[in-house]
């Protein structure tokens, strides 16, 4: 394989999962329709044919059962990688994730590891029906014992899925499903950053904007428009939602004095709220304006014909940037 290849994220994830299955015989995939079908998003396409139906396992249709049995397999040394079919379908497994998976190592006082990855296609922009477009990451970021990451590019997806699988902690791997098919360059030789590092995607001087997953491309779009109006925006891709890598965020705020945090999820008690609180605690004197959140509204994800009104777009980012600059 050449050093870099242009791939969509779904294919990059497929390549990353394939590499993980090759590297470690203890890695196995579990989920609904991930076998012959290759998953509803085709992320696992071809993997069952290559690695067999014991390592790439179609399960009964029961999310709690998938996570609960994966916990049992991890207890015996396996490294299960679970696919939850859609964001809104993770809730039947909520108890096994939060009361069991997250606490299992602590309950054993360190004498048990839970190297489980739960892949969650999440977010809107795909025009789907109810329960298929949600951003439930804050529920899990609130739970000690879990790690949460979300790639925004095919390159990050390829590397981060492998790093998540190598982690000895449970990792919720949020895949921005609206970014599954746009292509990007994947460097198969080396990773750009560690699993839990935020990354400055574009440097700027006037306002810092932070987001994750599909929001990063919206932030870049907003930055491009702002530049034509003479505003220089620094864009940071969180990559890791738990823990959050505050170093690059605080460094950026020291420079710009202004921060806008954007997310598809409802804003109340969200990842963005946490960042706003922490930046206020740690960089109060650097701030020239309050930290502003741009979020989905605090309503259930609306019927898809209304989703463009619900989801923050570049204009809503720019509106917040303008408010920040007006302080």
């Amino acid at each position, binding site marked *: 394989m050449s050093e870099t290849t242009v791939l969509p994220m779904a294919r990059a994830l497929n390549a990353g999962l394939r590499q993980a299955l090759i590297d470690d015989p203890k890695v*196995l995939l579990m989920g609904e329709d991930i076998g012959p079908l290759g998953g509803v998003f085709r992320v696992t396409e071809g993997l069952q044919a290559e690695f067999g139906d*014991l390592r790439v396992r179609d*399960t*009964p249709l*029961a999310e*709690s*059962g998938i*996570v*609960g*049995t*994966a*916990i*049992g*397999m*991890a*207890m*015996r*040394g*396996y490294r299960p990688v679970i696919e939850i079919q859609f964001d809104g379908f993770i809730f*039947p497994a909520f*108890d*096994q994730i939060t*009361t*069991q998976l997250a*606490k299992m*190592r*602590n*309950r*054993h*006082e*360190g*004498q*048990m*590891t*839970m*190297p489980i990855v739960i892949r969650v296609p999440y977010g809107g922009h795909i025009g789907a029906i109810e329960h298929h477009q949600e951003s439930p990451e804050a529920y899990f970021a609130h739970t*000690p*014992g879990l*790690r949460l990451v979300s790639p925004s590019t095919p390159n990050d997806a390829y590397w981060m899925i492998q790093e998540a699988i190598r*982690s*000895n*902690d449970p990792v919720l791997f949020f895949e921005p499903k609206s970014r599954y098919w746009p292509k990007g360059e994947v460097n198969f030789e080396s990773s750009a950053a560690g699993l839990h590092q935020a990354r400055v995607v574009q440097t700027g001087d006037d306002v810092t904007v932070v987001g994750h997953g599909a929001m990063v491309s919206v932030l870049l779009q907003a930055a491009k428009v702002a530049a034509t109006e003479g505003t220089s925006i620094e864009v940071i891709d969180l990559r890791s939602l738990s*823990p959050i890598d505050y170093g690059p965020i605080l460094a950026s705020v020291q420079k710009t004095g202004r921060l806008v945090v954007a997310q598809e999820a409802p804003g109340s008690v969200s990842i963005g709220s946490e960042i706003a609180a922490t930046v206020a605690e740690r960089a109060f004197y650097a701030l020239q304006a309050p930290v502003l959140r741009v979020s989905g509204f605090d309503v259930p994800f609306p019927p898809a014909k209304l989703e463009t009104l619900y989801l923050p777009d570049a204009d809503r980012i720019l509106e917040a940037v303008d408010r920040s600059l007006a302080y």
Partner: protein
Amino acid sequence: MPSSAPEAPPEEQMVQLLTAEGTFQPSASAEAYLPYVEKLADEDHQRFYRDMVVVRRFDSEAANLQRNGQLALWPPSSGQEAAQVGSGHAAKPQDHIFPSYREHAVAMIRGVDLLRLIEMMRGNSHGGWNPSEHGNFHLYSVVIGTQTLHATGYAMAMQLDGATNTANPDTDEAVLVYFGDGASSQGDVSEALVFAASYQSPQVFFLQNNHWAISVPVTRQSRTPLYRRADGFGMPGVRVDGNDVLASYAVTAKLLDDARAGQGPALVEALTYRVGAHTTSDDPSKYRTASELESWIARDPIARMRTWLEGRGASAAFFAGVEDEAADFAADIRRRTVALGPPPTAKMFDHVYAEPHPMMAEQSAWLSAYEASFVSGE
């Protein structure tokens, strides 16, 4: 049979070897299990009796410790000794046991220092033992029914490892998972039965029907005898007299052997009774009748085993020795319980994550500095 237990049809009579009066009189349904009980020697019978007596004494000591303010809570196992001791001895050393939170006898049989259970109920730990160093006895599980899925995943991993179904019953592994009549209503238990049947994982689901989920009778959980649910999931279901230690042993041993030989999972419903409270925080007199309780005390598992052993010539010295051993066991638990100090602060932070985590480092350092500020600033 009390009115609260759904009745089985006559042809599916529960498996019983020892009657409530202590007579060895196998039910017609017991035939397939007789070879297992025939292999037991006198010392096995005496071990079963000893374990039941010791764990009952331990259990009452623990309840007293809670009354003395030494424990936050205690879930008594009194009345369920035969179901637990019989099934616990049926498991082989290579088997893995996934308990609920009342399987004190099984913990003892598998070599767990019962002070570990006391530490949990005192507020010193959430468990904290390594199952692989403690008889493959996994941690207690407090969220009802969750452990049935972990057990099933573990059994599926045995299959992946080729650790089962190799025609060697001395090394082939299986899983024994405990839950109760209340848990039978949980979705996780249904999902575990579905996964186990689907993958034919080597395991026995051991349902202790003790007739009460705190204050709610089993009739609220099920209109059908619980063992018959197995049929719907596609596995054998057997109802056993859970107050008969020999029957509980034989049925579990056979079904575990069947599972390790590749015949897939099975469900056992052990009919027993929670003679004590759900936990020390409840009052059974508010929800059940004295006559029901008395009817079950008349079926006591220890009394009937004693009668049977006496009939087989066990000496008065044997029974006295067991009583002494039980008293010593309880006294040792009491002595060590009151000597327990608080757990180390580090227990809060050190085991949340396997890999370094900035919030753990930051918050544990902050707490240390905060605590130190009181010492130095007095």
